C-alpha cells in the first residue's frame, strides 16, 4: 500500500523522522549563518552613504522575512488542522508563532538600532515599521489565546479561527497603514528588476544569510513542535496514570 503524505504528520512518525533530520537542519543553518554573517560583516565594503551601519541588514532583512513567513506557515498549518485535524499541524502552528514572535522582535530591534543613524530616531511611524508592530500584536494575541485555554484541542480550534480572521485583518491593516502614511523605509532589496537591487557585493551574503535564517526557522519550528508533542505525551500519560 502506498503511504500517504499525511502519515508523516502522525505524531509518532513525526518524532521518528525529525529526530535524524533536526541536527542536519541545525548544522546547515549554522554553516549558512556563519558564512553569511562573517562574509557580510567583514568582507564587504562600507556603503558610501550609510557607512558600516548598512551591515545590520544581514540580521534585519532575514529576520523580517522570517517573521512574515512564520505567519504564513501558521495560516497553512491552521487550515490543515481545521480540514484534516492532524495534531502535529496544530502544534506546528503553535511552534511557529513563538519563533515568528522572536523574529519580529529581532526585526524591530535591529530596525530601531538602524533607524538612529539613518533617520535620526529609533522609531518613526513609517508604514512598514507600523505594519510590523501590528504583526507583533497579532503574534502576541495569538500566543496569549493558546496559553489561556486549557483543553489543547479547543485551543487549536480557536487559534485556527483567530489566525484565519487575523490574516484577513493583517492584510487590511497593511493597506490601511499605507493609506495613512507614506514612509521613510527602504523598498524591496530583493527584486526581479536588477536596477532596484542593492549592489551585488551586499546581495550575495544577504542571500546566504536569508537561507541561514530560513533553515534556522525550520529547525526551531521542528524543535519546538517536538517539544510540544512531548508535552502532550506527558500530559496524556499523566492523565492515564491518574485514572488507573
Amino acid at each position, binding site marked *: 500500500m502506498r503511504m500517504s503524505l499525511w502519515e508523516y504528520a502522525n505524531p509518532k512518525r513525526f518524532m521518528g523522522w525529525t529526530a535524524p533530520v533536526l541536527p542536519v537542519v541545525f548544522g546547515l543553518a549554522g554553516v549558512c549563518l556563519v558564512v553569511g554573517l562573517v562574509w557580510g560583516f567583514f568582507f564587504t565594503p562600507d556603503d558610501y552613504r550609510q557607512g558600516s551601519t548598512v551591515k545590520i541588514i544581514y540580521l534585519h532583512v532575514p529576520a523580517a522575512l522570517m517573521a512574515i513567513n512564520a505567519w504564513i506557515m501558521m495560516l497553512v498549518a491552521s487550515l490543515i488542522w481545521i480540514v484534516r485535524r492532524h495534531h502535529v499541524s496544530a502544534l506546528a502552528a503553535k511552534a511557529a508563532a513563538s519563533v515568528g514572535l522572536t523574529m519580529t522582535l529581532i526585526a524591530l530591534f535591529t530596525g530601531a538600532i538602524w533607524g538612529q543613524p539613518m533617520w535620526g530616531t529609533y522609531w518613526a511611524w513609517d508604514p512598514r515599521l507600523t505594519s510590523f508592530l501590528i504583526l507583533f500584536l497579532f503574534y502576541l494575541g495569538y500566543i496569549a489565546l493558546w496559553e489561556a485555554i486549557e483543553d489543547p484541542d479547543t485551543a487549536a480550534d*480557536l487559534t485556527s479561527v483567530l489566525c484565519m480572521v487575523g490574516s484577513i485583518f493583517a492584510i487590511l491593516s497593511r493597506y490601511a497603514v499605507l493609506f495613512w502614511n507614506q514612509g521613510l523605509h527602504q523598498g524591496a532589496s530583493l527584486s526581479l528588476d536588477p536596477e532596484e537591487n542593492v549592489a551585488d557585493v551586499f546581495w550575495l551574503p544577504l542571500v546566504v544569510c536569508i537561507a541561514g535564517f530560513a533553515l534556522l526557522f525550520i529547525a526551531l519550528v521542528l524543535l519546538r513542535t517536538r517539544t510540544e508533542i512531548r508535552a502532550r505525551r506527558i500530559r496524556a500519560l499523566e492523565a492515564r496514570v491518574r485514572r488507573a
Partner: protein
Amino acid sequence: MIALLLRDLRLAVRAGGGFGLGLAFFLIVVVLVPFGVGPETAVLTRIAPGILWVASLLAALLSLDRIFALDFEDGSLALLATSPLPLEGAALMKALAHWITTGLPLTIAAPALGFLLSLAPEAYVYLLVSLLLGTPALSMIGTFGAALTVGLRRGGLLLSLLVLPLYVPTLIFGAEAVRRGADGLDPTGALLLLGAITAGTFALLPFATAATLRINLR
C-alpha cells in the same frame, strides 16, 4: 431572532442603564485627555479627530466582554445553541444589540464632545458619518472577539489584546476621514473603505463567531 435582540436591549436597559454608560465612558475619556495633554486649543484641535475615534473604540471595547459572558455563565448560550435559532443569527443579533446600546448613542453624542475638544467646524459632518459607518464594524469585530474568549475567566483583558489589532483598519480609515474633512481634503475614499470594512465584517464574521461559539460550548 428579534426576540433575542429585544431581550438583550431590555437587559441592557434594566441592568443599570446600558445606554447611558457607554456614552458616559466616552464622555469621560474625552474629558480626561485635556487633563493629560494640557488645555491648548491648537493642540486639541489637531488631535481631536483621533482622540474622538480612539475614545469611541475604547468605549465599545469596554462592554465587549459582557456580550456573551453572562449568557455563557447562566447557561443561556448552551440553550440557545440547541434551540431552533441559528447561532449565526444569534451572533448577528448580539452585535446589533451591542451597537444599539454603544455605537449608536456614541455617534449621536460625538458632535457635542467634538465641541469640548475644539474640533474643526468642517469636520463635524464627517465625524458623524464616519462613526455611523464605522461603529457597526467595531461591534461585529468585538462580538467575534467576545466569542473567542467566552469560556475564559478574566477573559476581559485577553479580549482587548485580541480585538484591538483587528480594530486598526477601522480606526485608521475612520480617523483619517475626519482628519481629511477637518483639513478641507476629500474624505470620500476613506469613507468608502470604512463602509467596505463594515459590509465585509457583517458578511463574514457572524459565521466565524458562530463557529467559535460552537467550539467554546463543547
